[in-house]
């Protein structure tokens, strides 16, 4: 048997080898097995290890800091933070704006989802594209656009002669303003969750009710809405966590009026006092993390969370005919889009053309100087373009390259460990961004052991956080791609003698490439518009577009900020539009902006 073990028919392991000859053959077998072991188990171990480092390690470090600041067990930091009235004011503000924003998002998102998902309105794809767009524009840019729609310096109101008097307060600098913009920003999240569920709602259920003599209104109330409870709850939880963790909107709308929420409180503490207050900031992060987890757990306990991007396509329910109500419904939808998208974006574009804040805009005063300034003259802005493009592209490519082998195991080699891995990848995306950022600072403040390199204050700490946070954004579409794939295609190549690396390279990668590309794009767009992480992690030289935008706005240079915002919106929309060319090859639901 000994000589045969080196041939192709080599067993993986043997049950019981006792004699000396079989021990020799075991040795031979091990030698022959090394490549096989490498490709399967070593690859899996490596993937799981990376997930642990990205998704678990930073948060474990954060929790350790909360319990034992600086390495010694102590409740001083916790006591100090919990005794401070500021903590509770900010917590109250956070809860108020998060609940308010969620309520608005649910009302708007549900209404639009029912119109798009159940009725025969025309131009469905255009409605979805426009309605979802705010989600893929940076929140801070949306906030600025809204600021510029109201208030004394609004070029729009000035052109209409309706601007309030100079010096009067912008109504958006308030809790109500934050709630309004949060609601508009995250209504698409609720919409997408419901839309995906409506797409899989079996036609027969509705037809059976209609055949039973129920009028459409009754079908909606007794059949559709009850069945939509799980996705609606999921949408509520998702938008609550997003509102709670949002930094850009309360930073722009809350800080000027001294309306502080937890993420902006953490930012102010860290910016004002530096890493010395890390222990306190860690406690604050854990507080906001705990609120987010409570929100998710509350929803989980009611129903299992649903994934809003992935849905199997069944025969979708035939749309209800609105007849006389169709035109009014369409007008109402486009009016809504006009208010939440077109109006603010117009204000943003107009502001970017104003020569200086406060100057009235006319054909004579309009100028492109702001664009010239942010593109060519301002050193930090120029760096930020390079940094943001580089970071986003790197994160997109690395995550997708990692997600393809990981999803192979997640989808086709189910096991308890892999189910746990799947859940763990969601954590950094589920917790508020500030939590991950503080955790990363704690993890990388000191030089890395063994190599002695410090990542803190470099661009690499931002990249690390992007990889951790956006991993799940790339993983989900790739997983959806695998689910669409006939596994016999892989088995056929296995039978042809191909080992795992070759199977991945020659068969699997080409076939999941379209969904992987969609995932990469989703990561790129999100990272490109990101502010929450980089606001806490940037240093001179590693500014991102979000950071530069924010510092323009904080310094009162709204026109530069608007110009930068317009440029990022153009990049985002161009990328979204470019994907529509290949959208037919993707599983439904992978591109959120396509119906």
């Amino acid at each position, binding site marked *: 048997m000994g000589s*045969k073990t080196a*041939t*192709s*028919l*080599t*067993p*993986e*392991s*043997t*049950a*019981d080898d006792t004699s000396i000859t079989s021990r020799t053959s075991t040795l031979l077998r091990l030698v022959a097995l090394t490549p*096989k072991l490498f490709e399967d188990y070593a690859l899996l171990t490596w993937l799981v290890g990376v997930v642990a480092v990205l998704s678990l390690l930073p948060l474990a470090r954060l929790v350790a800091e909360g319990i034992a600041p600086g390495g010694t067990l102590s409740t001083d930091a916790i006591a100090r933070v919990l005794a401070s009235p500021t903590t509770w004011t900010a917590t109250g503000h956070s809860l108020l704006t998060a609940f308010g924003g969620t309520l608005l998002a649910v009302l708007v998102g549900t209404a639009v989802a029912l119109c798009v998902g159940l009725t025969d309105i025309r131009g469905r794809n255009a409605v979805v594209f426009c309605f979802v767009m705010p989600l893929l524009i940076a929140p801070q840019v949306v906030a600025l656009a809204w600021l510029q729609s109201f208030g004394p310096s609004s070029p729009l109101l000035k052109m209409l002669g309706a601007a309030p008097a100079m010096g009067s307060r912008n109504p958006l600098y308030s809790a109500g303003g934050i709630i309004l913009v949060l609601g508009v920003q995250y209504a698409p999240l609720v919409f997408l969750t419901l839309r995906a569920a409506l797409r899989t709602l079996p036609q027969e259920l509705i037809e059976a009710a209609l055949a039973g003599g129920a009028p459409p209104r009754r079908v909606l109330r007794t059949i559709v809405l009850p069945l939509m409870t799980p996705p609606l709850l999921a949408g509520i939880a998702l938008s609550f966590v997003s509102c709670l963790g949002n930094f850009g909107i309360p930073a722009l709308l809350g800080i000027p009026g001294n309306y502080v929420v937890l993420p902006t409180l953490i930012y102010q503490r860290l910016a004002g006092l530096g890493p010395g207050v890390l222990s306190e900031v860690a406690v604050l992060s854990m507080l906001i993390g705990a609120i987010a987890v409570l929100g998710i757990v509350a929803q989980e306990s009611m129903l299992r969370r649903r994934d809003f991007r992935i849905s199997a396509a069944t025969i979708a329910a035939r749309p209800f005919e609105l007849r006389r109500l169709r035109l009014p419904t369409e007008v109402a939808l486009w009016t809504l889009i006009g208010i939440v998208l077109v109006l603010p974006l117009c204000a943003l574009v107009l502001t970017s053309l104003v020569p200086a804040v406060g100057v009235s805009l006319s054909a004579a005063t309009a100028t492109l100087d702001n664009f010239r300034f942010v593109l060519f003259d301002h050193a930090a802005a120029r760096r930020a373009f390079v940094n943001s493009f580089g970071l986003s592209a790197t994160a997109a490519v690395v995550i997708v390259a990692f997600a393809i082998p990981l999803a192979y195991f997640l989808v086709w080699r189910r096991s308890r460990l892999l189910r746990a891995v799947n859940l763990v990848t969601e954590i950094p995306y589920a917790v508020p961004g500030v939590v991950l950022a503080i955790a990363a600072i704690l993890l990388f403040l000191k030089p890395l052991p063994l190599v002695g390199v410090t990542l803190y204050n470099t661009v690499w700490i931002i990249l690390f956080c992007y990889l951790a946070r956006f991993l799940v954004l790339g993983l989900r579409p790739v997983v959806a791609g695998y689910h669409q794939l*006939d596994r*016999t*295609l892989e*088995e*056929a*190549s*296995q*039978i*042809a*003698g*191909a*080992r795992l690396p*070759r199977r991945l390279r*020659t*068969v699997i990668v*080409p*076939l999941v490439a379209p969904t992987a590309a969609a995932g990469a794009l989703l990561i790129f767009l999100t990272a490109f518009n990101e502010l929450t992480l980089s606001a806490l992690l940037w240093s001179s030289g590693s500014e991102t577009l979000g950071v530069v935008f924010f510092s323009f706005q904080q310094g009162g240079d709204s026109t530069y900020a608007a110009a930068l915002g317009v440029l990022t919106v153009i990049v985002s929309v161009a990328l979204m539009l470019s994907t529509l060319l290949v959208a037919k090859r993707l599983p439904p639901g992978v591109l959120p902006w396509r119906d």
Partner: protein
Amino acid sequence: MARLTIDHLVKRYGEFRALDDVSLTVDDGEFVAILGPSGCGKTTLLRQIAGFDKPDAGSVRIGDAVVSTPGQHVPPERRRIGIVFQSYALWPHMTVAENVGYGLDVAGVKDPERRQRVNAALALVELEGFADRRPALLSGGQRQRVALARCLVTEPSLVLLDEPLANLDVHLRAAMEREFARFHERTGTTMVYITHDQAEAMALADRIAVMDRGRILQLATPSVLYREPADDTVARFIGEGMVVPVAGVARDGDATCTADVFGHRVRMRCDAGARIGGEAHACLRDNALRVVNGATPGVRATITSIVYQGGRFRLDAAPERAPGVPLHFGVAEPCSLRPGDSVTLAIDDGWVLPGWVTRASGR
């Protein structure tokens, strides 16, 4: 070398035994069909042979090498076998030539030998002009032939075919059946053919293994399977045999006996080795039943339905002695019988089921 030996193989999914003590030997160069209804475990067996799953007990050997036991497992990519999948599993992003040449690439075969062997394989399935096409542009039969060429180009010692004709329409099936038969003749490869279609299995296989509920009920040549089924299930499954109770079984030759069928004494065949006597079950074929005039001794029965089948009628009848055991037989056109008519049936042949005999005598 390419003999396939499956020894007491067991595969459980929870409490369910998908494979229940399956043993099977396929000789070098033999064409064996595994036949059974859906859910009988035939696909599970194929996946065990291919190595996609590991067994809970028993072993699989290919040639002299043990490839599967609960403790050791050779992965599919090292078993050097070929599979033709039901879905064909052609890679949509590769041309026909790339699909066929894939296994050669993996094995490190370089041009010009590679190209030569791909062309030879395509010539064998008569697809010479299609090398640069994408699978999406081929018809069902052409895809099937590409899958066959891909599977054979590496000259595997054992080829598994997983319901390869299930996705083709009827007339194409007959053509592909002939192609498989010719193929097996020309290459002499050991083939295991999974199917639920007994006509296909009979037409192609040297021997057929009938599977049901995770067990192999009988492994025999098509003719033996039809003439001498091992038990009730096989008898009913193959050729829609009628299983009837018989009494007073008495051997009157090496492999013949007489027995009472619904009170009428009939001469039958029986297993030469089996102990027989008393009561048993027998398998009757529709072509052994004949309508005779009322004066001749035979089985009295009432016609329950008549279905025209083109040139002949299929008649179902209930014996007067046991209306719960339906009989069926054919009558050539024209036929004057109507449902409700009484007929007398002569029985010219039958087979005493040995499986039943053994169990009955063991009681």
